[in-house]
């Protein structure tokens, strides 16, 4: 994989390691045709934080939101079976149980 490939490009190539935790973010977005994150969204996120972001963090936030929106776009390319259920289940509890 090329270091300057975007996460989306990496996903397309099937060589992505974009998942968090074990593996580093492959977040470089140079040359990516994906639309930039809308300014109002970046402002909305920053309003939720206790302190203003540094200039570097603001730039990286724009990249991160762009990548995140890319996941939203990419997932639309895979149509799920109609009416399928998510892999989660609410477990009903009787009246005696009052906490998790």
């Amino acid at each position: 994989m090329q270091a300057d490939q975007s996460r989306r490009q990496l996903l397309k190539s099937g060589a992505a390691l974009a998942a968090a935790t074990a593996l580093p973010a492959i977040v470089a977005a140079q040359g990516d045709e994906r639309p930039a994150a809308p300014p109002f969204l970046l402002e909305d996120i920053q309003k939720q934080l206790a302190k203003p972001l540094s200039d570097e963090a603001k730039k990286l936030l724009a990249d991160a939101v762009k990548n995140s929106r890319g996941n939203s776009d990419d997932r639309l390319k895979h149509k799920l079976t109609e009416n399928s259920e998510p892999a989660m289940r609410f477990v009903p509890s009787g009246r005696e149980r009052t906490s998790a």
Partner: protein
Amino acid sequence: MSVDPFSSIGELGAALRSKKVSSVELTQMYLERLRTLGAAHNAVAELTEDLAMRQARAADATSSSNPLHGIPFGVKDLLATKGIPTRWGSPGHADQVFDYDATVVSRLQDAGGVLVAKLEMIELAGGGNYNVANASRMGPGKNAWDPSLWAGGSSSGSGISTALGCVGYSIGTETSGSITCPSAFNGCTGFRATYGRVSRHGAMALAWTLDKIGPICRSAEDCGLVLSAIAGKDPNDPSTLDQKLSLRSGKRPKIGLLKEDFAKNKADAAEKSYHFVLDTLRKMGYETADVAMPDLPYETAMNIIVDAEGASAHENFIRSDRFQMLQDVDQVAGFAAALETKAIDYLWAMRLRNEALQANRIWEKCDCIFTPVFYHKAVPVDQPLDKTWVNMGGEMISPPNLLGWPAMAFPMGFEDGAPLGGQIIAPCFEEATCYRIVRDFQRVTDLHKKHPSGA
């Protein structure tokens, strides 16, 4: 006292039972190695010397047939330990102390284990998409074999300290690769059990539907001993499985082989190592079959789930004035961006996980998969990872984690003197298959017994 710090758990136990060494002496030896070697590689979050010496004296005063009795161990600093700081690798959590032990810690202590250290990790297990090895409170995890290389993450300290002989064994955790990656990069054997096999009570949550805990050791047999001690139902973690762990397997498993891209990734050393493992196993009678995973957007689903669950798990922190104390500004950006993850995206990802069950059809042709963890040795420790993470492969990190499949990573060779790791991946609940194959391989080879020079 003369005990090899790289001894297996079985050897350490035999030395203790024969009184060749005491638990106090073993504990002192490992504490000293953690202070020097471990600290020099940024592997240590907190030494637990007072507790360890108390536990070692107690172990020496009693006898037990438990194989972990009196053996010093370390745990990733993601696991709660009563009265001892648990910082999750994060400068923003430097003063965090819990008043209880994680179930895994309790179980190991109940087995007579001696907790010598909390081991360093990537801050918040890397959930914000880190881009530097320095995304860690104690500094970048330096590879046990070559400190100019990265130790991998997020269970960095667990991989380093096990490989350097600073502990008898260690505990790591994995959401998506955090046991297998540091095991591969440091030449350890790491065991990611089936999702739900080990209680996560007292463990930092990154992604509730993905997080798993497992041992990082110096052999498959050691991993089996530790996993047997920590596995099992826990009323404090409703996700734990009812089924009991068994590491006994029946007929010899058939090994599935994926199409590997060694040439495309310029991975000559990995290709040679891969074939060495395969040749060895075939000589032992193991059969193989070519297999393929269904083509599904596993990574997209993984990204969305970790974003959504991670942002929720850490929302209070993200909105706090301590948030920007995180070491890596990419983590700040990533966690902040994740606040905007859409519910409909998350539910798509969770529906995809059910659809991905079709991947279980692979087990009609084989009983497990053998594949490299990565195609290359660890990347440099001092450069941004998006510049160095090239031709690494790693396609079999996300799919098995989404599906909850167990895997055992193990040393399969070297590239320019640094370890390369392979992994055996099995269906859910079939840890015995991973265990058997790696144990058999290690019985006739010595890669797992090689240690960093000077350690």
